[in-house]
């Protein structure tokens, strides 16, 4: 639901930009921007979707329930919640899932990236660039493009449905592996569709690169996982472009969450360094060399180098990640041999465990402390959108002064587009959008 209201300017030099309900984002949030003498003096990304208290009601539950409970935090990225949860628990119990079970976890994550990224690229973000109110209006002029997006998303759904047991809120992931693993022939049924999807993803990269982009390069602090051999999904060290290189277990000694009055989502910052950027653009900048040759080639063809600091071009990088996910899924399927058992043994003990995986929108951190029966004593979950809030506000503070001459409605739209660069998932972030620009 979109309802923009622009505050009446009291003088030529001051204004309020206000968006009551941000459209085409997941959950409820708004935006308030105050401008005085052509300077932005205040930006608030307001997250007013009510808090959801997941961390609190995980206490007292059994460790085995965690993947299914946390999957409920998000209908768009349930796999991310399941993956961070199981890795944190496995860390606590001192076990490691390897081989084909590990490969299947990468495969189901590929499915989620394809689904989530395709929805955002085609349905939520592309209309901004092409000047349409929404994907429905866009479909009237670009029917075949929208059809391609819908089919591409289905390829991702098919992976999640097969491995997760169902499309939404999958139920087949467990600490130690899966409840049931697919046969070779079951996985092979996905391959034909994924070959088509890989071609469609390549077309998507070209289409995304053809869009008009504002000149808006920023100096960002990027944070993402980095793995010695792979583009990151489930494992790696937390690295930045400014020297951070830590194990996942060191997250809380390096990052802090701060409460702000205007948001139900905690703001996350890197100690001594401040706000940081997570998600496809951070992953791309920190892991370009880990992309498959096909994805790297597509990026170069799209005019990108191994570094890109224009957040509006995140739509290209998100498309490159769709291509990578299709490519990686096909590689995993080609090499698949069913494991002897669907899960490894889980020796329960009293311990704390840490997990961080790359959700479609960026790093998702989980920490659990369990007793000797495996009952959860406390839990901490830091979703990607809450980590990006401060950077989104910084972008708006930089972006608005350049475009103050635009008509009110268009300026409001451009601000929303700048927020959608991050594909914010407000439902995930609440503990967490409305646009207001106050010109005085």
């Amino acid at each position, binding site marked *: 639901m979109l309802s923009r209201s622009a505050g009446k300017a009291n003088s030529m030099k001051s204004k309020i930009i206000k968006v009551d309900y941000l459209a085409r984002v997941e959950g409820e949030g708004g935006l308030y921007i105050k401008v005085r003498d052509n300077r932005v003096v205040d930006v608030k990304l307001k997250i007013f979707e009510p808090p959801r208290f997941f961390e609190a009601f995980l206490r007292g539950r059994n460790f085995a329930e965690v993947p299914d409970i946390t999957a409920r935090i998000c209908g*768009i990225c349930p796999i991310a919640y399941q993956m961070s949860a199981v890795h944190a628990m496995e860390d606590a119990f001192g076990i490691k899932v390897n081989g084909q079970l590990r490969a299947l976890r990468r495969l189901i994550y590929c499915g989620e990236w394809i689904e989530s990224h395709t929805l955002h690229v085609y349905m939520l973000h592309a209309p901004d660039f092409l000047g349409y109110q929404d*994907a*429905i209006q866009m479909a009237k002029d670009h029917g075949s493009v929208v059809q391609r997006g819908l089919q591409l998303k289905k390829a991702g759904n098919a992976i999640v449905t097969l491995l997760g047991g169902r499309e939404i809120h999958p139920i087949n992931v467990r600490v130690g592996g899966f409840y049931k693993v697919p046969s070779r022939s079951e996985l092979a049924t996905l391959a034909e569709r994924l070959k088509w999807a890989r071609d469609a993803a390549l077309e998507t990269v070209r289409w995304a690169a053809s869009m008009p982009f504002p000149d808006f390069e920023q100096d960002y602090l990027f944070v993402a996982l980095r793995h010695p051999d792979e583009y990151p999904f489930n494992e790696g060290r937390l690295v930045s472009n400014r020297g951070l290189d830590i194990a996942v277990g060191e997250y809380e000694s390096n990052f802090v969450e701060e409460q702000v009055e205007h948001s139900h989502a905690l703001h996350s910052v890197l100690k001594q360094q401040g706000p940081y950027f997570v998600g496809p653009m951070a992953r791309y900048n920190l892991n370009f060399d880990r992309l498959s040759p096909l994805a790297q080639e597509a990026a170069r063809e799209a005019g990108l180098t191994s570094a890109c600091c224009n957040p509006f071009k995140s739509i290209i990088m998100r498309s490159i990640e769709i291509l990578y996910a299709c490519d990686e899924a096909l590689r995993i399927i080609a090499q698949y041999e069913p494991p002897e058992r669907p899960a490894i043994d889980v020796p329960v003990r009293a311990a704390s465990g840490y997990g961080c995986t790359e959700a479609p929108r960026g790093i998702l951190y989980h920490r659990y402390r369990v007793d000797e029966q495996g009952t959860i004593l406390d839990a901490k979950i830091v979703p990607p959108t809450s980590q990006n809030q401060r950077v989104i506000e910084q972008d708006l503070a930089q972006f608005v002064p350049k475009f103050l001459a635009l008509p009110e409605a268009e300026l409001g739209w451009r601000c929303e587009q700048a927020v959608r660069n991050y594909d914010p998932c407000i439902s995930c972030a609440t503990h967490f959008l409305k646009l207001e620009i106050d010109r005085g």
Partner: protein
Amino acid sequence: MSASTSRILIIGIGNAYRHDDAAGLQVARRLKEQALSSCEVHEQVGEGTALMDLWKGAERVFVVDAVQSGAVAGAIQRFNASQQPLPAPIFRDSTHTFGLIEAVELSRALKQLPSNLVIYGIEGQNFEAGTGLSPAVLGAVNDLAEKLRQEVKVEVAFPL
């Protein structure tokens, strides 16, 4: 999930863990229990692209969802979506605001809307977290399940 091959399709939408939001799911479950062989019955969470995929190719589609229009709890509204746009604000939001309304309108824009798409809205009262329907909504669910069973029977006997 693939496009339906059945001529008649019934889709119940809702969140099973938000009290009255589950009204559409409950109607679907009652019709499944009655094993209507003449049609397919599906339960959905309301994700738009999945709905589009499901009703693509079907001739006659009935969708049941909970609504918030300010009417009395349990009130049943009927919309012929093939003929007119839905009154968007009364249907509850789905993930990434790509839900039932968007699925109907995107299908219309892509010329993939079933020729007969009827949407029933059951007015809910309690959308807080938890299970179980309000008494008035439970009554409406039973009434609508029976009405749909009759509608399908007539449809089979006297196809459009």
